[in-house]
């Protein structure tokens, strides 16, 4: 039985656990404010708030309900527009702002924007203009041209920043961003989770031995795009909410991460912000806020898309992955040895990624990605690089590239070549020659083969422009 709080109502459901939250709220709960624009996570019309207890804290994030199975709602607070609407028919400050700036035309996208901006007002990020716009980076509008919505978003920074001395949620209630009932959601969720804890302890949650080929489900942002119908009834092992897979640790030598860490966790991690000075700029290039809130690292690695951004990122860190199975036997493998061929992995079907780790000993890191649309788009080509410099000399280098081969690609020869070299226009040119021998791009909707070759050359060069302001003329 899946149990969660939907707006102000506790719900339990025996529906197939793969049912999307979108279908659940619209067609089972008749909450029609949440709209359907694509069922692919790409438009944001179905955006909801998901409140989750993390330790003592109740934290809200936006998610696209079309890609979210109700199993991932278990034990959480799911908020649709009906859950923030005022009973007196009036408008919340977010809704007023959208009306005042004429941020709504046909209205079909509007609720998604309202939800994203509501989350902006209740989460604990700084209320900068940049953050306000960033909050709506997953919402597409075909009517307004966004300028009016931008004005609405910017006008909210003041309200959102108004603190009543309390925790975020109490400020938000005080500011009338969300209704009063939000005040005791934390307690109500604890109750659900406590009752859950006992059940969980009393039952064996490992897959039963008879079941072959268990499929793992994390955030669902690939699985629900690729096979939405099948997923409703699929018997998956759900890894998304496993606390054991959701950590970021630092040791002397390594950074270790649980496999279910999502991209947003990296963005919010102090360790990552320290190690990667351009973290925000780079991770903004990966999907959108609601998708980053759902997209796990392991999901990205196992999906094995040749243009997976996080895969390119961790390949360039020469990361290792830990694979486990139901019997808890584990083994470790360099990520670069994980990819055997197109969507072929060095992994048994019953193995899942449990941990990821990489050495901290790099001095420079850069990530480049170009697509048709700079944000919320899949790369035509992406590439990442990590370097350990000693003086002017490259002690070691790891370079990855996506979109130029059947798998995510660790550029072995190029990485090897760079070792011991000094940074110069000549080194870059020679490395670029080697890169061209390591890749074999396929023409597709994201570009011709010639374009991808040229683009990787440019982006590889861009690494050095970014990191060393290299003179590339």
């Amino acid at each position, binding site marked *: 039985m899946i149990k969660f709080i939907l707006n102000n109502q506790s719900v339990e459901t025996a529906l197939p656990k793969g049912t999307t939250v979108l279908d659940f709220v619209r067609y089972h709960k008749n909450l*029609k*404010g949440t*709209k359907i624009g694509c069922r692919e996570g790409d438009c944001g019309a179905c955006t909801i708030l998901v409140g989750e207890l993390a330790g003592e804290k109740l934290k809200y994030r936006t998610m696209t309900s079309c890609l979210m199975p109700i199993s991932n709602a278990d034990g959480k607070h799911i908020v649709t527009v009906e859950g923030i609407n005022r009973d007196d028919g009036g408008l919340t400050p977010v809704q007023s702002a959208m009306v005042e700036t004429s941020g709504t*035309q046909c209205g079909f996208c509007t609720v998604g924007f309202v939800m994203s901006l509501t989350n902006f007002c209740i989460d604990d990020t700084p209320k900068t203009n940049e953050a306000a716009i960033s909050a709506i*980076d997953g919402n597409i509008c075909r009517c307004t*041209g966004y300028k009016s919505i931008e004005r609405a978003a910017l006008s909210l920074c003041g309200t959102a920043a108004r603190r009543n001395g309390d925790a975020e949620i109490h400020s938000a209630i005080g500011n009338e961003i969300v209704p009063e009932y939000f005040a005791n959601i934390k307690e109500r969720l604890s109750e659900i989770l406590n009752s859950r804890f006992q059940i969980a302890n009393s039952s064996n949650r490992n897959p039963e031995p008879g079941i072959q080929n268990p499929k793992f489900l994390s955030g669902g942002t690939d699985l629900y795009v690729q096979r939405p119908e099948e997923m409703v009834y699929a018997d998956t092992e759900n890894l998304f909410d496993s606390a054991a897979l959701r950590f970021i640790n630092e040791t002397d030598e390594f950074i270790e991460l649980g496999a279910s860490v999502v991209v947003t966790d990296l963005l919010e991690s102090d360790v990552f912000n320290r190690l990667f000075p351009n973290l925000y700029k780079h991770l903004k290039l990966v999907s959108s806020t609601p998708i980053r809130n759902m997209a796990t690292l392991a999901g990205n690695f196992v999906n094995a898309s040749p243009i997976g951004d996080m895969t390119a990122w961790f390949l360039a860190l020469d990361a290792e992955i830990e694979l486990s199975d139901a019997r808890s036997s584990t083994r470790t493998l360099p990520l670069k040895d994980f990819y055997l061929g197109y969507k072929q992995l060095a992994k048994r079907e019953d193995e899942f990624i449990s941990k990821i780790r990489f050495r901290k000993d790099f001095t420079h890191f850069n990530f480049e990605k170009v697509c048709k649309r700079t944000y919320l788009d899949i790369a035509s080509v992406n590439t990442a690089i990590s370097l350990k410099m000693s003086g002017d000399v490259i002690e070691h280098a790891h370079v990855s590239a996506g979109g130029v081969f059947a798998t995510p690609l660790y550029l072995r020869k190029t990485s090897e070549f760079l070792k011991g070299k000094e940074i110069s226009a000549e080194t870059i040119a020679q490395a670029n020659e080697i890169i061209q021998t390591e890749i074999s791009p396929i023409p597709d*909707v994201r570009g011709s083969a010639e374009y991808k070759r040229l683009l990787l050359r440019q982006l590889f060069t861009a690494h050095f422009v970014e990191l060393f302001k290299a003179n590339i003329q």
Partner: protein
Amino acid sequence: MKNVDSKSHVRGESVYLDDVPLLQGTLFACVYDSPIAHGKLKNVDISEAEKADGVVRVITAKDLIGENQIGGILPDEPLLADEEVHFCGMPVALVLAETEEQAHAAAKLIKAEIDPLEIVTDEREAQAKNELIAPPKHFRLGDAEKAFATCEHVFEGRADVNGQEHLYIETQGAYTIPTEQGGLKIYSSTQGPTAVQRAVSRVTAIPMHQIEVDVTRLGGGFGGKEDQANAWSALCAVATQLTKKPVKYALHRMEDMRMTGKRHPYSADYRIGLDKDLKIVAYQAKFYQNAGAACDLSLPVLERTLFHCTNSYFIPNVSATAYSCKTNLPPNTAFRGFGGPQGMFVIESAIAHAAEKLGVSKNEIQRKNLIRSGDEFPYGQIAESEAEASWTQADQQYDFAKLQAEADEFNTQNKFVKKGIALMPICFGISFTKTPMNQARSLVHVYTDGSVAVSTGAVEMGQGVNTKIAQVAAKIFSQPIERIKVHTTNTLRIANTSPTAASAAADLNGRATQMACETILERLKAVAQEMLKDGAYRVESSNGNAAGKPSEGGTQSGVSFENGFVFYNGEPTSLDWLLVVNEAYNSRVNLSEHAHYATQGINFDWSIAKGHPFAYHVYGTAIVGVTVDCLRGIYEVDYVKCCHDFGTSMNTSVDFGQIEGGIVQGLGWMTMEEVFYDSDGRLRSNALSTYKIPDVYSVPKEIAILPLETSRENLAVFNSKAVGEPPLMYGIGAYFAIREAVKAFNKQNFVKFDAPFTPEKVLMNLYSEISG
């Protein structure tokens, strides 16, 4: 004045097709569509699907009771493929099941046996094979052939411009309900309720008076739901007719993208001749329109390409020919601008070509040739031009010279980042070019509590037409907007409507509403006059003395309504709206009116291709500035600054919203939006993950809008001007601005005119000598 729907929008309480509560027993439909772009349909095997869980029935062409035909202009579009399939995505069969999921699952079990025929996706190839929707159309002014001989400079070239997916965020859909005695009620997400009614009538053989089509609002249309909404209603209607059950079909995004047509791609050959003073003396253009597999609206779209082939320039000698080419793609259709933007792209390309070869700036040629009042358009209408006014006001207000100087300076300072600027004047004719469509009706009821209900033929799709119509009624009745409700668009209340298109809905339906309200108001004034006459109501003069009752024989014009009160000869009285309305009812005076409006003074004769097709033109000029990252081949739009001709805007927040939205849609078309069919006619950009429209980060950092100062009268409601389509064409400026920036980096390269300017094309052009 905000959009009257905005409160229910932000609360998620506005109703769209998929939100209509379902009746018990509703069946869900799903189309099985052709996986092959062209072939003989030998057999459709539905046996497995019929046996599938929850399936109630599978319908194919032979089941239709009426005619298997939904072509609105030409009868060339079967509802369900019969003997042949003509494009990938052509509906072949319709599955009906108890749940949506079951319908989708069963559709996958259908197998069609198709003998492939040759697939043509390219418009020039189709034209060469004489695969045309209709004979070509021509526009002629002066004698271009002769004039070219006198030109100092002549340039010729080719311009290509791709299509555009509408990407209304609400997909297409319909919900049909059987009504008694064999009738149908249809909820449709359509811009053309009457078109739906006609199509349904045709395929079911049920007469139109038995078919009620009701539209609350659309989650976006942009032309994509003008004719292309018909099929889904027609399919559901056939299903309801055969099963006697309500039937619903709300398309999935990928179904919508693959089965519906888009903006027409065009290829064109141009020839432009200038004299030594850079005056354009002659222009010749051949347009190849990619119509797709059926006519749909391709012919009027083609005509508008011709109407706008000289944009806002006066060219004394023009010869333009346009071919509507039949290909194996989904039938392309209306899209904001309706062929006009493609025509403008080609003339702008020709001018850019000439400028580049002559070593002058493009805007110099543009400016010298702007059309003036009294000049003749190639189709015979005489211009009442605001072209120079809008250009000059934009130029001065935004200081173009300074913007250009800053960009030039920036470009000398930076090697790998370049700026480009372009000026984009527009001139867009308002009216349906098919004259009979320029009519509208409005039904206004005043109720005895003083509230007012209005119904018109206009469909609300975000453009704010309901708000403007409510404003018309509120203004005439001097009532607060809350007392006015503009109701659903319904074929029982308003018959024989024109689609909500051509930017004309507010003009036409607003005028009809104005007429209906004024008629009722005149009656109410007469009633008030009578009421004042008997002395029961005081008239208060401004100096405080009672002015007494109106004298016998006093004119009715002495009575007016202001803020809900009756005024007499400008003086307030104690008589108010509600009292007058009730007295009118008691005196058996008609409180309802159904008014009819038809635009006057327009005509067009296709036999000579001359006339006066437009009530007026909308003019404007935009300055577009971009920055190109020449290392990565990506770009940003820094600003679009325009001077736009609104007339007297009825609602600036609605109109500014239309401008901003139109500009961004136009930019999308010119930059990232790439409709991509493979050579088998299969759509590869078939989802939001592969077809990109602008997001919040890709819009211009600044959009500035300056209303043109003018006092010219025009035919629209309260002297406003239509605003829906024209601003989209400012987006064309982005193409030419990017081109300028690319040229600043790679001076040897002549950039082909081939929109959209995707990052791929940018990078390939930046490094053309290396890649080429």
